[in-house]
């Protein structure tokens, strides 16, 4: 206790000592700042160019990030919020906490058009069901086949998890008014619904299910980091729902130029090169060196499905109650 208070005191003293160099405070989700995420390398690379102190603050997961910004309001210390996705940006824009991005915007390589005035994408991915190729040789090609099969799947709860919400919108976008019947069909395939991605993926690796809702890029981790090519994502012919992760600048920032500089840096190769093998997502702007080797083996969905932020915000409550009703029968 004493030591913690002492340490806390010391860190205050330390931050006062460096008060001359400007501090850029970036709020993001916890796995971004972790030692195994992009955070440490990003900090090093940006500080080498900016003559500033880049401080990441982890706020739990993606949904907690927005909640934190809302709780703090305009008095908060954040300059940048990094890690919201398009399912949250409508609500984020509504708070009035974000400032318009400076022009011109960097060119991006997204499968869809992007012209949001407040938020700049930094990576993206497709949601997909991941399976083990050595155990499942003939994966389903769409949700109907999955529903008709005896395959067991693990999904995340849309109320507590970003991929969970992604799946909800995926089914809704692909099937519209038939979404309910798809969920009813899937009910007997779903082994369980977990709080977050980590639990779901952990259970899948333990062999609790044949498939797990994750990202189309997940097999790249096993291939590149573990030299294990047994994992694959099933390609669904309805298309795959996208997650686009974005960053925005807080209107209350006391270092707006530095914030702009960081946003520009986020579109540069120095940042984008880190994304594929630390966040295991596609870079929003393809670096000059292209993608790492293992990424060429990943599935390439024909259709990229996504709701606009406004549509996503408008439809999610209806989609959630359809999901709840279908799975509670």
């Amino acid at each position, binding site marked *: 206790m004493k030591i913690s208070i002492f340490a806390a005191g010391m860190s205050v003293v330390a931050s006062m000592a460096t008060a001359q160099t400007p501090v850029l405070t970036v709020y993001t989700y916890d796995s971004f700042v972790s030692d195994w995420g992009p955070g440490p390398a990003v900090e090093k690379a940006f500080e080498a160019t900016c003559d500033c102190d880049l401080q990441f603050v982890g706020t739990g997961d993606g949904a907690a990030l927005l909640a934190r910004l809302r709780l703090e309001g305009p008095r908060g210390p954040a300059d940048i919020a990094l890690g919201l996705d398009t399912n949250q940006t409508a609500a984020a824009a509504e708070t009035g906490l974000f400032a318009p991005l400076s022009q011109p915007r960097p060119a991006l390589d997204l499968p869809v058009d992007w012209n949001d005035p407040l938020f700049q994408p930094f990576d993206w991915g497709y949601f997909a069901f991941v399976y083990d190729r050595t155990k499942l040789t003939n994966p389903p090609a769409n949700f109907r086949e999955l529903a008709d099969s005896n395959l067991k799947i693990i999904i995340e709860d849309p*109320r*507590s998890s970003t991929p969970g919400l992604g799946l909800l919108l995926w089914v809704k976008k692909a099937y519209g008014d038939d979404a309910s019947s798809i969920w009813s069909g899937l009910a007997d395939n779903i*082994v369980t619904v977990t709080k977050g991605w980590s639990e779901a993926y952990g259970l899948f690796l333990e062999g609790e299910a044949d498939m797990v809702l994750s990202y189309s890029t997940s097999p790249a981790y096993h291939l590149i980091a573990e030299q294990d090519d047994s994992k694959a994502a099933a390609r669904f012919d309805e298309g795959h729902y996208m997650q686009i992760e974005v960053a925005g600048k807080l209107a209350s920032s006391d270092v707006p130029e530095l914030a702009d500089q960081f946003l520009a840096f986020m579109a540069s190769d120095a940042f984008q090169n880190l994304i594929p093998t630390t966040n295991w997502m596609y870079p929003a702007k393809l670096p000059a060196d292209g993608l790492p080797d293992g990424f060429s083996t990943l599935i390439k969905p024909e259709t990229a499905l996504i709701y606009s932020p406004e549509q996503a915000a408008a439809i999610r409550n209806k989609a959630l109650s359809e999901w709840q009703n279908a799975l509670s029968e």
Partner: protein
Amino acid sequence: MAKRALGINPSTLIGWLSVALVLVLTLGTLLAVFGRAEGASSIGPSDWVAVRFTLLQAGLSAAISVILAVPLARALARRRFMGRGLLIALMGAPFILPVIVAVLGLLAVFGRNGIASTVLVWAGFDPISIYGLGGVLLAHVFFNLPLATRLILQGWLAIPAERFRLAAELGFSCRAVARHLERPMLRAVLPGAFMVVFLICMTSFAVVLVLGGGPRATTVELAIYQAFRFDFDLSKAAQLAGIQFTLGALATVVALRVSAPMSAGSGLDRVVMRWDSSAIWLRVQDSIIMLAAALFLLAPLAAILVAGTGQVFRLPPQVWLSAERSLLVAMAAMTLTVLFSLTMALNVVRLRHRRRLSMTIEAIGYLTLAASPLVIGTGLFILLFPIANPVALALPVTAIVNAVMSLPFALRILKPAIMEVEQTYGSLADSLGLRGTARLRLLILPRIRGPLGFAAGLAAALSMGDLGVIALFAGPDQATLPMQLYRLMSAYRMAEAAGAALLLLILSFALFWMFDKGGRMNADT
């Protein structure tokens, strides 16, 4: 008389301050969240479904845990064998594990791909599917059977050896011993044990979600989560948390009213000998019960051990650093829990003749069991943000919150022990003029050493494994071990996460063992 004898002293004051702290952290944070809400919203029908399911699963989980704990505690109380102490301590381990670790361990045994299923498939049966209410109950019994057993075992150990001696002299059969000694004890102990397990299961969330199999298994805590994160509806979150508190308070009051005070009288602290239960069939019965329980509780731990062993020494330095951080937080939380619970328990006992007041203090002590960690964390954030940088305070705040979260268990353990001391030796101490600090030092502390060690060990271990509020507050360099474990998992590093899980299990258990053993030194209990 005892009232006067204990007098007004620092411990009384700290006891009252502890009550105030609990109120701030529970109801205060709730009000803070409510006050921050924009617009009012109301509780809908789906929320009442969640309330119903919460009560159902918590009631069943508590009932099963307590019913199974009685024969197990009896077996442990009347048998002596090599490694008994270690077995008792080890069986407590599930309770102190972080949920995800315990769940993975449980699934390694009872999952679709687990040992039990493998054996069944090999024998030509279908594999087990534990997802659903059954899975929730299985996990809750796995978590709480050890705690219930320990709480009930304490009741058995509080019956002095002389009672059993007298019973033997009178030629009591096993049945007669049960009627005259054991059942009155259980009558006093069971309601409290049931209540504690009920409250733990009531706020359980990740277990229910993972093993519940889907939205059918929605608890109030999940509804709070949804209100916060999906809807950012603070008003609804606060209302749901209010419902949860009300249910918790009701359960507590019922339990405290139902439990009859126990007084087994004083003894000379002899080693308990059980002449009534030496029959061979009773020995066999007890052995089977203990073996079955050990298998059920220890097999998942063994799975965690197997999964993590190869990884522990290859863990990166950051994980060790966070382990050190967690240890510091755990020690701080343990110290605070002991301070809070001891002083509160002393006040409860001192004021026992004013039953309503005494019960109110005790009930407040249990309040955190019904609290939502998410509401506490968010409320604290709202309270702290205007006056300080919550991130800089992350670790001290975590220690305090952890301390208060363990308070109910410590109080449940210490209060009956202190009550017993006061009822047995209170008059003697009064007549000797032993009061204040001297009474605490010379009479009470030495006689509650066992329970105190148990409470301290539990508090340290629970704090070690807690993810709780730190997740909302911590900066990048402040991760505790459970947080680091989650970070590893979310970076796909499941093997290293298994190593971190084992490290966490070992450290939590070592802390628990150290204090619990320290409390039982020289005492054959």
